[in-house]
């Protein structure tokens, strides 16, 4: 185990230094090869731990007042490392391709240095086993992300967005530090000791720690109200780096939430979990609302990341509630849903960012209202974007369906709880999550259809070139993963179990969700024979001769009165779908297509002479109903200016400018900013310039300090 870790870190170190030896254009090849190599090593390392069960525990230096700095890998860390590996492998290849656009403008060597530095922190943070190393690595990660986001430092707006991210990140780090301090109490800072001492914390302190951790990690995870930096930062980040930002660093925030709020501070009260559910649901709704009305593809995907982070947090909150109220099996389902969604999100979001990056790089614009018809010039990119869009809209047979379905089923499991207030919260938040799922479909129909289909709305869109292989190969890899994760859920869930078991005190998600219908599965005898026979008539044993594992059906069994609470099988669904489509196509070709030729005519446009692109629907028009229905959230301002040429009724132009202030800016950022400024102004009155008064301030502070020392 140790050697693999050393290989990874070694490759990162080489990657930080080596490019400075070579010329600029070779540097990007180094990024590609070394990055891919390091990612492969990471996959092996974390795979060994996740699938194989090997443990890893090492102590580093000891710093006397704080304790020992430790690195340890349990299955939870391994899961997050594996996901990072899946993201970093294609991202490195993609980055090496798109870095070509930066040749001559910015230093690729510097990019490489920061990139591999971040790689190393991405590897080390899940591995850190005590609070101090965690905080130091977290801070390092924040700084490196800032450096990478502000890579295009000549654009003032990008630097400003990165600065906002850094500022909020620092506030988050402060909260996390406080949380660790309170958790540790008077004991050591390593996680084992914290786990032990946290059992004795009082109710109030538990609330404080929970909220501090939720908001502190929520900054990086993208939760309301601390995610105001996210859309701007994602838009400002350079193309080679954005997929990693969205696919890997977002997960770190969620890792922190799970580690602190589920592992180190085992849930015993339902309250904090409910807060997480509500916060997650609101985050999801706001995220998708703003995503639907965006015209810039990158910003759209950023808001969509917020939405997915919200869904994951909401389901995690449900898991906390179930653990606290003593339903470990259902909690396992909830954790399974959350982790599955996390994995899925990393895969399809990275895929979507690859596609958008390819379009931006080849066509030159990301604005939906200036794209159109890109499928004709970039067919592969369009196909992969479609796979990503179908996945994120939770359509079978892709992976988004499984995790979204499990998430909504989890919310429905509130039926087993007894307290009415909790059930109402679950119901309302479940409804909000369903609404976000529907809005997500709208959003991605718009994103795909308006950008890739139809007529090109600008010359750039008409003249794009096909994407290079350094972009299409990573996209193909992730698209295949989307399909695989969607079609084989019963193989993924047992893998997630490794991370789930410690959090639910032994309950297994596979136990709760994957009944062993296959006869040669070791656990087959656990099921009652009559039950198995019923399902065998439905075909639940199909595939047992050549597929390993427990079965292909995801099902939650209930008691006597309700033997099947919910069930589905995307594996069988995919096969059936494939067969039906093929059959329909075959019938069409053999019967109808034989008798008459297919004629291709122009699209019917009402009889006008030419249909121009400006006569086709724009993305803004498509999403306008959402903007109108949710006007209370958006509160847009409209400035209308009609220029007349001559006289009162001849109009030369009607210029309308729509201004929008993000609801969080209105409700959170601006009030805080105004309050801070007014407090500062109040204190500024103390700086009046009289020396005598300053001496008096010093005297007063000295007296106060003496009094405190006297009476404490």
């Amino acid at each position: 185990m140790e050697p693999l870790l050393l290989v990874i870190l070694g490759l990162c170190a080489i990657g930080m230094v080596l490019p400075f030896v070579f010329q600029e254009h070779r540097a990007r090849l180094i990024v590609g090869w070394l990055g891919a190599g390091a990612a492969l090593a990471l996959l092996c390392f974390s795979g060994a731990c996740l699938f194989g069960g090997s443990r890893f525990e090492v102590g580093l230096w000891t710093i006397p007042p704080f304790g020992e700095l430790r690195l340890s890998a349990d299955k939870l860390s391994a899961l997050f490392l594996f996901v990072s590996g899946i993201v970093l492998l294609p991202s490195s290849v993609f980055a090496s391709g798109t870095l070509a656009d930066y040749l001559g403008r910015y230093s690729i060597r510097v990019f490489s240095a920061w990139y591999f530095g971040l790689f190393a922190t991405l590897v080390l943070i899940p591995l850190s086993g005590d609070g101090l190393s965690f905080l130091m690595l977290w801070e390092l990660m924040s700084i490196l992300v800032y450096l990478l986001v502000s890579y295009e430092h000549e654009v003032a707006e990008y630097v400003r967005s990165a600065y906002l991210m850094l500022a909020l990140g620092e506030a988050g780090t402060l909260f996390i530090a406080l949380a660790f301090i309170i958790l540790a109490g008077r004991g050591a800072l390593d996680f084992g000791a914290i786990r032990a001492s946290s059992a004795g914390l009082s109710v109030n302190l538990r609330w404080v720690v929970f909220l501090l951790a939720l908001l502190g990690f929520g900054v990086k995870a993208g939760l309301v109200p601390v995610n105001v930096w996210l859309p701007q930062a994602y838009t400002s980040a350079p193309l080679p780096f954005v997929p990693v930002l969205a696919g890997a660093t977002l997960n770190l925030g969620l890792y922190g939430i799970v580690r602190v709020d589920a592992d180190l501070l085992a849930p015993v009260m339902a309250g904090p979990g409910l807060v997480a559910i509500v916060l997650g649901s609101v985050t999801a709704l706001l995220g998708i609302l703003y995503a639907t009305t965006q015209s810039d593809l990158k910003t759209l995907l950023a808001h969509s990341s917020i939405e997915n982070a919200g869904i994951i947090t909401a389901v995690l909150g449900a898991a906390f509630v179930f653990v606290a109220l003593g339903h470990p099996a259902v909690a396992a389902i909830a954790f399974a849903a959350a982790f599955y969604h996390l994995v899925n999100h990393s895969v399809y979001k990275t895929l979507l960012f690859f596609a958008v990056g390819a379009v931006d790089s080849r066509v030159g614009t990301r604005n939906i209202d200036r794209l159109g018809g890109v499928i004709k010039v970039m067919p592969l990119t369009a196909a992969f974007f479609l796979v990503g869009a179908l996945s994120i809209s939770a359509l079978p047979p892709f992976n988004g369906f499984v995790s979204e379905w499990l998430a909504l089923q989890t919310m429905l499991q509130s039926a087993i709880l007894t307290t009415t207030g909790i059930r109402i919260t679950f119901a309302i938040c479940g409804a909000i999550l369903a609404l976000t799922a529907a809005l997500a479909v709208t959003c991605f129909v718009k994103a795909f259809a308006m950008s890739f289909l139809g007529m090109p709305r600008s010359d750039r869109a008409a003249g794009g070139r096909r994407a290079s292989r350094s972009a299409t190969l990573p996209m193909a890899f992730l698209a295949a993963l989307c399909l695989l994760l969607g079609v084989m859920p019963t193989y993924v869930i047992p893998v997630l179990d490794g991370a789930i078991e410690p959090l639910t005190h032994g309950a297994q998600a596979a136990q709760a969700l994957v009944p062993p219908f296959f006869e040669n599965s070791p656990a087959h005898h656990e099921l009652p024979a009559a039950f198995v026979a019923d399902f065998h008539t439905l075909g639940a044993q199909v595939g047992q001769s050549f597929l390993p594992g427990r079965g292909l059906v995801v099902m939650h069994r209930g008691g006597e009165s309700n033997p099947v609470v919910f069930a589905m099988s995307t594996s069988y669904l995919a096969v059936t779908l494939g067969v039906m489509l093929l059959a329909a196509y075959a019938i069409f070709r053999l019967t109808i297509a034989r008798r008459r030729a297919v004629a291709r005519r122009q699209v019917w446009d009402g009889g006008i002479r030419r249909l121009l692109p400006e006569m086709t629907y724009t993305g803004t028009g498509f999403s306008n109903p959402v903007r109108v229905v949710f006007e209370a959230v958006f509160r847009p301002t409209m400035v209308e200016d009609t220029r007349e040429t001559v006289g009162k009724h001849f109009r030369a132009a009607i210029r309308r400018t729509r201004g929008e202030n993000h609801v969080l800016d209105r409700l959170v950022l601006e009030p805080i900013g105004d309050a801070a400024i007014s407090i500062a102004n109040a204190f500024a009155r103390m700086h009046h310039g009289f020396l005598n008064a300053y001496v008096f301030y010093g005297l007063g502070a000295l007296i106060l300090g003496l009094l405190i020392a006297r009476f404490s």
Partner: protein
Amino acid sequence: MSAELERLAEYAKARWASRVRSSLGEGEEQLCRLDCDASELRAVCDWLFSERHYSFGGLVAEQRPSWKLQYLFYGAAGEGWVYVVSEPTAEQMPSISPMVHAADWHEREVEDLFGLSFEGHPRLGDFVLHNDVWGEGLAPMRKDFEGVSRDEGLQPDPNWKPRRIVEEEGAFAMPVGPIFSSATAPVHFQLETVGEDVIRALPRLFYTYRGLEKMAEGRRAEDVVLLAERISGTSAFAHSLGFCQAVERVCGVMIPERASALRVFLAELERLRHHAAAIHGICESTGLAVAAAQAAILEEDLLRTSGSLTGHRYLFGMNTVGGLAIDLGESECRRAATEAARVAAGLAGLQSMLSVSSSFLDRLEDVGGVSTNDARDFGLVGPIARASGLSRDLRVAQPYCDYDRVRFRIPEESEGDGYARLRILFREAEQSAGIISAVAERIPEGRFRVPEVALRAGAALGWVEAPGGAALHWVRLGSGGVVERYRIVTPSFANWHGFRLAAENFAFQDFPIILATFALSVHENDR
């Protein structure tokens, strides 16, 4: 001669001295003619329109061979006609559209068809003759135009595209038509929008432009009656009446009383049927199927009544110069009047049911409103203007035929929205049925036409309140009774101009309903 017109002439003489020369009409004619220099044209027209509140009727351009433009104004309260006559210098005239916006489309049409330029008008070109078919530079109404060969004459502009006005992020221009609904006339709308509301609606008309004014030149007057009927088949009687009255005025013919009365009878029958059809269109556009069917039944009843009374369902072939083409018996007229009264009762019943159908009213109330000021500026006429507070009716302002002896009211509403227009249609239909009954009671004895009409040269205006509003027919006859110039100003021409006032700033779903409440005829506009 009204005192008002005399005062008008005095004032003009006092204010503009020799640059404007006024003359008054003879005898019974309520006419004041102001010959003015091109430099004073704007001032005179602005004064008439804005200060004296005369309505702008139309613009008549003639090439004799020197150019002469006549701007026709009339007083809505019965003051009479004012013709402002001017001559262009080097085929250029100052444009009066910035002050008198009602002249906008008239000037555009003259520019497109005659090639005269109007300085100060910002929107010349591509109006009647579509530039993507013809290109610029063709002036078919000129005397020397010989027709154009398809191979060499057409120079269409392949890159022509409609002008965009809205500048907003994400705005687009949705094209509707010219073929866009089940069995409608062709008109193309360019609806600029950002997705929900129509920000700007620009109709592109003249797909059914047949060149009637050009066709009429050189034909005998009795043949041009056939053309006048076919300006708009659903207002055939009204337009042929306008033309016949113009010719009768040129030749100084007094038509017999019986002919006058029967003309009123048939004109009101046509108005009643036109309004029933408009009500049917409104009910159909809102999707209220039973109401639409009821209105359609009443419309067909009136068509069959017209058919059995005159031999043609649309009253073709009834008007002739000097009276009617055939006589109508008293008993037949009374039967038709009874039928009209039954239809009117049916319409009243329909109205009472519609006024309590809230889902129907929701689509019409406060939708597609036109303010009184806008209606006046754009020169709207007919039921649409009356719904916006402008109660102008040529039957009252300048009575023709027997209308000064018939008692009826002109309904007026002030809201200007779709429901107001519907209410006006119902009330006008009721008034028409009343007139029909009143006339059928006492049709004067006598001849139904002047047997021989001696056609002579001259020019005159014939006017009529068509079902859609005020229609003006300017006719100049040459020797032998041949038409030299025929200028047709139709109510749809004025009202299409103002359609965009109602359609803009409403949602897409309201657009077909606003279109139906206007009940405009594309063929009447296009000629």
